[in-house]
């Protein structure tokens, strides 16, 4: 299931349902009983976090209305997490740190010191990513 979702998210980069990808991915993590390491969340609101997944940070693409964060799981499947800029949209704690801090005359890309580094995704009880925990090299 996750692989197929990963394929969908890979397609999303080519234009297939990017906004649905996060929802589907979240559902997949729950439905497949994937067993991410259960740890106490270091980020705020630990009660909100029910699952933790370790992934590798691959890329970030900043659009005006949303930021798409790309990761790969242990099997190499691509995962996309989308943070909307629309008013009232849920923010992902720690996601800002994945972006380069001082982009030069353009939308920011991935933070160089976090690129290809392990990242922990914190999911809520609906499978949605609510926080990102990163460790610079």
């Amino acid at each position, binding site marked *: 299931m996750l692989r197929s979702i990963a394929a969908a998210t890979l397609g999303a*980069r*080519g*234009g297939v*349902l*990017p*906004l*649905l990808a996060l929802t589907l991915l979240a559902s997949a993590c729950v439905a497949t009983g994937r067993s991410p390491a259960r740890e106490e969340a270091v980020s705020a609101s630990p009660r909100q976090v029910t699952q933790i997944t370790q992934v590798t940070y691959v*890329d970030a*693409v*900043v*659009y*005006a*209305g*949303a930021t*798409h964060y790309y990761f790969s799981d242990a099997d190499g499947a691509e995962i996309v997490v989308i943070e*909307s*800029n*629309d*008013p009232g*949209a849920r923010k992902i704690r720690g996601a800002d740190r994945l*972006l380069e801090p001082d*982009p*030069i*005359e*353009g*939308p*920011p*890309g991935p933070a160089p010191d976090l690129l290809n580094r392990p990242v922990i995704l914190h999911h809520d009880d609906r499978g949605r990513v609510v926080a990102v925990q990163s460790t610079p090299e």
Partner: protein
Amino acid sequence: MQDPRHYHFDLPSHGRPARVRLDEEWYPGIDRYYGACTSARLYHPLEGVRAVVIHATAGSSTAGAISVIRDARASFHWLVPDENEPQHGHFVWATAPERLAAWHVRNAVSHPEVFGGRPRINHFSLGIEVVNAQVDSDAFSDWQIEATAGIVRYCWAKYPNLRHIVSHAMLDPRRRTDPGERFPWQRFRDLVLSGAEEPVPDLVAMATPAAEVREVVAGGCCTA
């Protein structure tokens, strides 16, 4: 569906509009923010503009798109509202002065067919964002396409060396998809080139027909 990585056309040397009125309004308060995410152009602000880049926001609201300017992450010159917003059908938002380079394309990006492959595209381009989520359920409205084409025609009339109309996806095909495969590029291109939506400029409409103009002769005297 078309591949947005191939969205590109060059404006012809003929057919340049003489004058196009643009229905735009400054986004309220945006002047407090764009200074932190725009640059002085490296090229002449009028003669140095060679390209217009078409983007889609991957979001569903003007407010969401404006937030990247407010947060000094990126910027663009115009924003075309979505169909559920009150400005839709009336005017587009101006969000950064045309004389400044807005930060809508990353500096390292270039394309061999755009101004000889020069990088730092922001310095010789203008950026248009269209509010659209880039999902199947969010079609571009006819007015959004007409408004976007209207901005391009306004630019074509104003900037003497403007030539390239390109998608962001064409410039950065590995990382970008905007304006997306649902953007009707062919219709947009036709609107730009045909000028079907162009209103007759006021001064032209009020002008005296040529047949009625009296001939001016040397000496300042006129004949009917």
